[in-house]
């Protein structure tokens, strides 16, 4: 092999190898450290699939693998109805919690705080908190929470999170992609560099979809000096507006 070509091959392999085998610094408990302030930089909140721009809505390349969401036939009709009614029916319009995984691609930063048994993901959006537990089980029986119940384990460098116990009230985006209370999400968080987490999630909901499907996106560290989480207390603003109209 010519030296220049060999060098090129070596360089490509090194970059790939670096991305695949980045070893994150460890927390005091010896786990890969996911802590910091992070934010998704994409347009998934508008539409998790590929979409063109419209007034006030940027164009975007979707986060859905294969760009297809395998709705059941009857579920597709509901998705279309959601789209038509999105100005009022999207839970975000009422300042409600937006569910999992949408909270991770909302246009607000979130902070990860990590202890040995628990990882808290705190979003600026209506102070949403996801407590991801490395202990215990999903609660038995029909317990339903907007953000679901998250139980996790470490697989090497990757945090694998199993999320169940959802309501049927949240949407995946502002376009009306939705789910039932049978939703089951399996997430994978992997540090790939000092300032990136690669996020993947498998979405499963036999009442709504014909098969599981996947989303993936990078999460970017907010690297500004002294960056911190602020607040978006949507509910308070909405109530003040309603008061003004009374």
């Amino acid at each position, binding site marked *: 092999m010519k030296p220049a070509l060999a060098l090129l091959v070596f360089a490509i392999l090194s970059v790939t190898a670096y991305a695949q085998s980045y070893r994150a610094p460890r*927390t*005091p408990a010896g786990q890969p450290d996911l*802590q910091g302030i992070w934010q998704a930089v994409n347009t998934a909140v508008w539409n998790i699939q590929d979409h063109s721009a419209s007034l006030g809505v940027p164009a975007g390349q979707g986060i859905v693998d294969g760009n297809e969401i395998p709705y059941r036939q009857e579920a597709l009709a509901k998705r279309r109805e959601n789209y038509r009614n999105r100005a009022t029916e999207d*839970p975000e319009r009422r*300042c*409600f*919690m937006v569910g999992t995984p949408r909270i991770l691609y909302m246009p607000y930063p979130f*902070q990860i*705080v*990590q*202890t040995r048994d*628990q990882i*808290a993901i*705190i979003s600026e959006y*209506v*102070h*949403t*908190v996801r*407590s991801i*537990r490395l*202990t*215990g089980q999903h*609660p038995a029986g029909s317990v339903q*929470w*907007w*953000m679901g119940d998250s139980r996790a384990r470490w697989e090497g460098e990757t945090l694998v999170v199993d999320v169940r116990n959802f*309501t049927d*009230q949240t949407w995946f985006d502002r376009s009306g992609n939705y789910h039932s209370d049978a939703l089951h999400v399996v997430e994978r968080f992997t540090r790939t560099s000092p300032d990136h987490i690669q996020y993947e999630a498998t979405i499963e909901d036999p009442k709504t979809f014909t098969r599981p499907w996947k989303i993936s996106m990078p999460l970017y560290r907010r690297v500004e000096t*002294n960056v*911190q*989480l*602020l*607040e978006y*207390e949507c*509910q*308070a603003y909405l*109530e*003040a507006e309603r*008061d003004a109209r*009374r």
Partner: protein
Amino acid sequence: MSCGSVVRVMLLAAIVAGGWRSVVIAQQASGAAIPSLPTRPDSVCPDDNPIAVRACGRERANTFTPPKTPDGKPDFSGFWGGSQVAHENLEAHVRTPDDNGGPSVIVDPPDGKVPIQPWAEVKRLENRARYIDQNAQCFQSGVPRHLYMGTYQFLQTPAYLVQLSEETNAVRIIALDGRPHVGKDIVLWQGDSRGHFEGNTLVVETTNQNGMPRLDQQGHFYTDAATVTERFTMFDPNTILYEATIDDPLVYTRPFTIAIGLHRNTRQGYELWEESCYEGESNATHLLNLGYRNYPGFSAKDAQIAKEAYERSRTR
């Protein structure tokens, strides 16, 4: 399995295990099995009198070694619970159908009264008559009120102490890494908190509050100029002495300090669960129908104007 037989099995198991705590739990609440309610052990200091708790707690703290983090700091991690008393009224108040009643939580000034300026007392009465408590709207309650009466989990790392509440999923993040406060043009419901350790006490300074939450259900309020200084001191394995000094010179004649015991919840496997408060809120609608309104907040500028107007009215 019927409820009665569940209770019998639990009692038997408890007797066999010899655990008195589980026996008590099995006897609770009309025979239903209670898998995960809080468990609150006794404190070494008397629990019902804030002045006594403060004196006793401070003395005990001199000889008590709290659990420590790997980097040698007192470790406040775990589950904690507050008390209803201050939520109702910072000052001493009797039991009514409305209130559980209780002593004043104000330890300084020693007379237990809020040192409120005359103009602000007028505003306080207006607040109480006109506005929905932020708690009823599922909004956050600011500092110190978010720590009065909730079900808490504290998560502590070298750089942050995070205080989670089950109630309305409230959260406060205290930075421990010495960074400066945010700029004064940013105001926040939970304020902006910076903490450092003095021996075994965590001292937290909170500024940049937005003046929206009230300090109790009697309409006691503060402005965005307030500074709140808190001291967290564990004095036995299961109790934190929590002291908070509120300094708002436009509203109060001097800083005043409250003291509350935060009690550890020792229930094994206890978890904070999601409370989707605002998503289900209907109480506020009812209160709005009764004529109450949302509190518009009160800035330092509002306070200056109100104070001057009051003083002008008094000189006529």
